[in-house]
């Protein structure tokens, strides 16, 4: 009974933690618990700048198609023209502080660009890259 209550409290705390702002470091730690190893900003940069061919409807499948070449600068949605705030944490400290938002966009954009979901390792590498700039 006591064990159950403790579990419930722990679960509630964990839920609260994931729902509140997290740091980049916490985000990386969560990828490690999902099986990722050491993160490599260089590998993240390679992932960020690798083209995966062209989609007839939306164009080249590469992160920089919308985020642009310099992560310190704003990007632009190529179809709607909507401005995307810079991805480099140094100029946009709000980046990667909301785990739900991070996962929402990784899910969409990895499938969009790479045709599959990213692994925890790949996500951590990319965040390490964007966090190192």
């Amino acid at each position: 009974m006591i064990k159950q209550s403790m579990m419930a409290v722990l679960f509630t705390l964990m839920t609260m933690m994931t729902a509140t702002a997290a740091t980049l470091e916490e985000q990386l730690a969560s990828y490690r618990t999902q099986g990722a190893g050491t993160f490599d900003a260089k590998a993240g940069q390679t992932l960020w700048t690798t083209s995966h061919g062209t989609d007839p409807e939306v164009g080249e499948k590469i992160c920089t198609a919308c985020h642009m070449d310099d992560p310190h600068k704003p990007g632009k949605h190529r179809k709607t023209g909507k401005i995307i705030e810079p991805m480099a944490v140094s100029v946009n400290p709000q980046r990667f502080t909301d785990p739900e938002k991070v996962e929402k966009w990784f899910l969409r954009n990895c499938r969009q660009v790479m045709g599959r979901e990213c692994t925890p390792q790949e996500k951590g590498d990319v965040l390490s890259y964007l966090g190192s700039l």
Partner: protein
Amino acid sequence: MHGNKRWAMVALSTIMLTASWAIADDDDHKGEEHGKNKTTENAAPATMDPVYIKECGACHFPFPVGMLPDRSWRAMMADLPHHFGEDATLPEKVAAKILDYAVANAGERSKNRLDRYVASSVKADQVPLRISEVPFFVEEHKEAAKHVNAKGPVSHWSSCPLCHTKADSGSFEEHEIKIPQANK
């Protein structure tokens, strides 16, 4: 409605919608309550669901949902992974909330008479996913069509506020239109 009161409400909804669209970006602001105004027969809808603005407005102008019929919204929200060539997947609960809002205010059951007219312009066997495919829209934009092209300042029909200067407040009146000209 008295003139002053009406103006105050228009001003208020302008500020609120402009503010929410501006902050929607892809930066998520959660759960802000927006003012609720009564919708008059022909006025633009004064409120938009904050979740709709936040999630849909993260990538594009949050179009007035009354511009499409019920069946269009159901079809659109059923296939977010293939949203006009983009993966726009949302968590199930969020998508359900947006669908609820969209169908509750879809063209045929909108409080706005114009929306109901727009919905009735769609043939029974059509399920348009783009507002720009709705017959009423096509008819109304016949003259504007020459200004919308990939090389011009208005490259897509989806950029409503570029010409409709009060679109952010949900108003698309003719006298508010200002078409941007290309630099020569």
